[in-house]
């Protein structure tokens, strides 16, 4: 009871105005697109993912009025939209072999395309977003121990696919 009262007071103190929410939604668009790009490694898919995430966030804009960390929630929405989109989209096939040119980012994209979606998400949340294991666990809804083991597996898979 006490907790709910405290959280209720916090929500009231955090209440954002409609203008603040509009500004927030406008300002986060580039970040959400780039996050989607980091997870999907495909610009066409990233655009659709960012659009879908923004629509979902807009539909729940009442949540943004009281959330303490709206960015964490928007990140979760975007990453989950990206995972759904990767699962639905056909693989880029046939994939050309990775380029030996170290400056060629196409090679990285193709190696990432061979990884499991959850591995791509963990790599992006670690290396692109710089999140801790606990934060990644919250975004993906998995325990911290699983995050650590999946991250290790994802890095190994990336190295293996790269050298193939």
């Amino acid at each position, binding site marked *: 009871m006490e907790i709910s009262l405290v959280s209720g007071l916090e929500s009231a103190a955090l209440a954002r105005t409609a203008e603040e929410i509009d500004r927030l*939604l406008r300002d986060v668009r580039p970040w959400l697109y780039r996050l989607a790009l980091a997870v999907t490694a495909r610009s066409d898919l990233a*655009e659709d993912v960012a659009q879908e995430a*923004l629509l979902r966030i807009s539909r729940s804009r009442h949540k943004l009025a009281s959330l303490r960390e709206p960015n964490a929630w928007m990140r979760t929405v975007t990453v989950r939209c990206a995972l759904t989109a990767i699962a639905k989209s056909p693989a880029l096939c046939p994939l050309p072999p990775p380029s030996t040119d170290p400056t060629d980012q196409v090679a990285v994209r193709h190696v990432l395309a061979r990884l499991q979606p959850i591995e791509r998400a963990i790599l992006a949340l670690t290396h*692109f977003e710089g999140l801790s294991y606990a934060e990644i666990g919250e975004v993906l809804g998995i325990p911290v121990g699983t995050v650590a083991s999946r991250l290790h597996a994802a890095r190994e898979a990336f190295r293996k696919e790269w050298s193939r």
Partner: protein
Amino acid sequence: MNPDPLVELESFYDECRGATVPQRLLICPVALPWWQRVAIPLAAISFGGLVALLILALPSNPSIEFRDQAARALLESQMRQAPQLPAPHHSRAGRSLSWNA
């Protein structure tokens, strides 16, 4: 080639951080207030209805109407040019007499 492929991965994420955001994503309105979400479809439906009424109000076959008008004008001109019939005779008793009588 770098010894660790993860360096390549890091540079890929650096590229993502500087990626150009599509214009469509920046200008597309995703957060409309409730009155705009109602007003915009209503305006679209009204405009569509207006266009439909205008289309229905147009004559279905303008060429037929034009031919009807032309035929009527021709008939009227022929009637004007036709010889005028004399007025019927009236007897002194006030009875109307036919022309053939």
